[in-house]
C-alpha cells in the first residue's frame, strides 16, 4: 500500500467536460491540467458553478455519457480513466478512488443500515467474508471517530446527526483504502466545530493510508487549514495553481486576489468587505476567447489581457493564467491586506 516514491499518480491532462444544453455542448470544465501526488492534499477552490464539482465527478466517471462530452486524459496509476468502460470504471470506483460527498443528509440510502452501506463497497472490491467485513466496519467507524461503533452500525441514517453521517460517508470512501480520495465540499453542510473534526479525520486518514486527497471547497479557511497545494478555478478554468503558501502569501491572479480580499479579516475591522463585480457567466454565455475574468475587472485595460490566456510558470511551479496579473490593481487603491494573515 505504502508507496515510497512521491511521484504524481494522478495526472489530469487537458480535460474538458461539456454538458448538453438544448442540443448543444457547453464546456463546464475546460482544458484543466492538474497533478496529485501521494501524501498530499490538493485543494480546488472556486465559487459555486466554477466547475470544481464537475471536475470531481468527471474523475469519478459519474457523468451520463449521453449528456456529456469529455475530452483529454486522466492518467491514474498508469491507466487512462477516460478510456475505461463502465465495468472497468467500477473496479476503480470505491476501490482505488473514494469519494466523499457534500450533503451527508441525502448521500446515504435512508432505508439501509449503516453497516450494510459500508459493507457494500467491500462486497464489490474485496474477498472478505461477512465476519471480516463486519470487523472492518467496526474498525472504520472507530477510525472516523464514531463512539459506539457496534450500535451505530445497526442504526439507520435518520438516527444519526449530520456530522456522524459525514463520518459514515468518509468511512465508505476509505473502506477499501483507496489511493485517491476526492472530497467534494465535505464540510459545507456542517457547523464549524464539526467541520474542524471532520477535517482532522481526513488528515489522519491521509497520513495513515498515504492517500492523495483532492479537496474541493469554496471555503478558503478550510483550504488554509488543510491543503498542501491549491488550484483556483474560475469559470471552468484553473487560473492559478501553487503551494498553499504561494497562493495565500503571494496571490497573483486577479481572481485569487479578489477572493482573498473578500474574506473577512479580524484586524481590518473598519474595512468594507471587497465584492467582486458582476457574475460568473452562464455556460452558454461563456466567451469563446480572451480572459474569462476580464469582464469582472473592467478597469484593467484590455491590452493587459492575453488573447488566449495561457498558464505561466512564475517560479517554483507557481502557475498563473494570463499576464494581466502584472497590471492588476484594486480600483479604490486601498492597500491590499487581506489573505496575508489567514494562515
Amino acid at each position, binding site marked *: 500500500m505504502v508507496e515510497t516514491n512521491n511521484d504524481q499518480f494522478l495526472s489530469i491532462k487537458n480535460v474538458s467536460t461539456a454538458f448538453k444544453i438544448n442540443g448543444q455542448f457547453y464546456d463546464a470544465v475546460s482544458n484543466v491540467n492538474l497533478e496529485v501526488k501521494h501524501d498530499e492534499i490538493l485543494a480546488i477552490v472556486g465559487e459555486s458553478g466554477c466547475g470544481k464539482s464537475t471536475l470531481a465527478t468527471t474523475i*469519478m466517471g*459519474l457523468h451520463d455519457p449521453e449528456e456529456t462530452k469529455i475530452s483529454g486524459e486522466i492518467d491514474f496509476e498508469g491507466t487512462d480513466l477516460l478510456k475505461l468502460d*463502465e*465495468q472497468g*470504471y*467500477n*473496479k*476503480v*470506483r*470505491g*476501490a482505488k478512488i*473514494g*469519494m466523499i*460527498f457534500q*450533503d451527508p443528509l*441525502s*448521500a*446515504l*440510502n*435512508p*432505508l*439501509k443500515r449503516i453497516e450494510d*452501506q459500508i459493507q*457494500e*463497497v467491500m462486497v*464489490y*472490491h474485496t474477498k472478505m467474508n461477512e465476519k471480516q467485513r463486519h470487523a472492518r466496519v467496526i474498525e472504520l467507524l472507530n477510525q472516523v471517530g464514531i463512539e459506539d461503533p457496534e450500535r451505530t452500525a445497526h442504526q*439507520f441514517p*435518520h438516527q444519526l446527526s449530520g456530522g456522524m453521517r459525514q463520518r459514515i*460517508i468518509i468511512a*465508505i*470512501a476509505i473502506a477499501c483504502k483507496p489511493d485517491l480520495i476526492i472530497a467534494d465540499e465535505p464540510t459545507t453542510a456542517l457547523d464549524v466545530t464539526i467541520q474542524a473534526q471532520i477535517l482532522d479525520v481526513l488528515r489522519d486518514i491521509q497520513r495513515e493510508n498515504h492517500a492523495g486527497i483532492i479537496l474541493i471547497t469554496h471555503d478558503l479557511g478550510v483550504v488554509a487549514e488543510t491543503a498542501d497545494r491549491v488550484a483556483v478555478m474560475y469559470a471552468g478554468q484553473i487560473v492559478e495553481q501553487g503551494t498553499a503558501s504561494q497562493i495565500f502569501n503571494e496571490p497573483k491572479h486577479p481572481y485569487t486576489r479578489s477572493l482573498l480580499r473578500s474574506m473577512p479579516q479580524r484586524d481590518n475591522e473598519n474595512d468594507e468587505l471587497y465584492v467582486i463585480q458582476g457574475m460568473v457567466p452562464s455556460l452558454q454565455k461563456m466567451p469563446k476567447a480572451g480572459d474569462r475574468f476580464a469582464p469582472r475587472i473592467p478597469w484593467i485595460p484590455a491590452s493587459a489581457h492575453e488573447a488566449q490566456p495561457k498558464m505561466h510558470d512564475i517560479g517554483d511551479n507557481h502557475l498563473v493564467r494570463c499576464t494581466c496579473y502584472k497590471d492588476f490593481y484594486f480600483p479604490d487603491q486601498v492597500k491590499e491586506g487581506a489573505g496575508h494573515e489567514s494562515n
Partner: protein
Amino acid sequence: MWKTILRRVLIMIPELIILSILVFLLAKAMPGDPFTGSINPRADPAQIHHLMAIHGLYDPWYQQYWNWVAHLFHGDLGMSYEYQEPVVDLIQQRGANTLWLALFTMVLTYGIGLPLGMYAAHHEGKLQDTLVRVYTYVTMSIPFFVVLVIGIWIFGYALNWFPTSGSVSAQASGLGGTVLSRLDHIILPGLLGALFGTVNIVQYLRSEVIDAKHSDYVRTARSKGVPMKDIYRHHIFRNSLLPIAAFAGYSITGLLGGSIFTEMVFSYPGMGLLFLNAINFRDYTVITALVLLYGFLNLLGTLLSDIVLSIVDPRVRVE
C-alpha cells in the same frame, strides 16, 4: 414496531364509535321511508304507521342506535326491507363476488403497473417512456364508465369473447365448472379495471424511480463501484416501492368496497351494486351496514398502510 401497531389499533376504537353514530344519523336523515314505495299505494296510511311502529322507527334516535349496536355485536345487522334477507347474508354473498373481482383486478393492476412503471423510468425520455406516458394520459382522460361501455361492446357483444353480465353462469355445474365460469365473468371487468388502476401506479412508480435514479444515495452507490443493475436491485427498487406499498393498503380496501361503475355496467352482483340499490330503495339497514363497513374498511386500509410502511421504512417506526 408492535408498539406502533398497537397504538394505531387503539386509535381505531373511538374512530369506529364516531363513525357508527354518524352513519346511523345520516341514514336516518334521508327522506322517505322504507314502506311507502313497496306496498300498495292505496293502502291505508295507518298501516304504514303500524309497520313503522313495529320496526321501532318512531323510537328516539339514540334508542334506535343502541338497538342497532346491540344487534351489531351479535352479528345481526338487521333484515333488508327490500330483499327480506338478513343483511349479513346479503353482504356475505355480494362480498364474496366483490372479493374475487377485487383480487383479480388487484393482481392484474400491480402485475401490469409495476413492470410498466419500472420500464418507463428505466428508459426515461426515450421512445418507450413516451409510449407508456401516452397510454397513461389517454387512459386517464377517458371517463372510466366510457371505457367500460366500449369494452363491453367490443369484447362482449361484437367479439362475444366474454359474458356481459352476472357473476356466474346458471349452466355451470360442478366445482371446476363454477370456478371457470366465475373466472370467465371477472376477466373483462378485471382487465378494464386494471387498465385504469395501473395508470396511477405507473405514473407514481415512474416518477419515484426517476427521482431515486438521480438521488444522491444512488450517486454514492455508483461511487462505490456498484454496477447499475445492482443499484437498481438494492437501492432504487425498494426505495421507489415505498409509496406504492403505502398506497396498496388503501387500494385493497377501495376495491373491496366494490366499483360501482364496473358492477353497474356489468350487472355484477357485488357490494357496489348492492349499495346503489339500497340507496334507491331506502333500504336503511343495508345502507347503514354498508357505509359502516366501508368506513371500517377505510380505517383498516390506513392501518394496513401504516403497518406496511413501518415494516419497509425505518423512519416511520416509533422507537
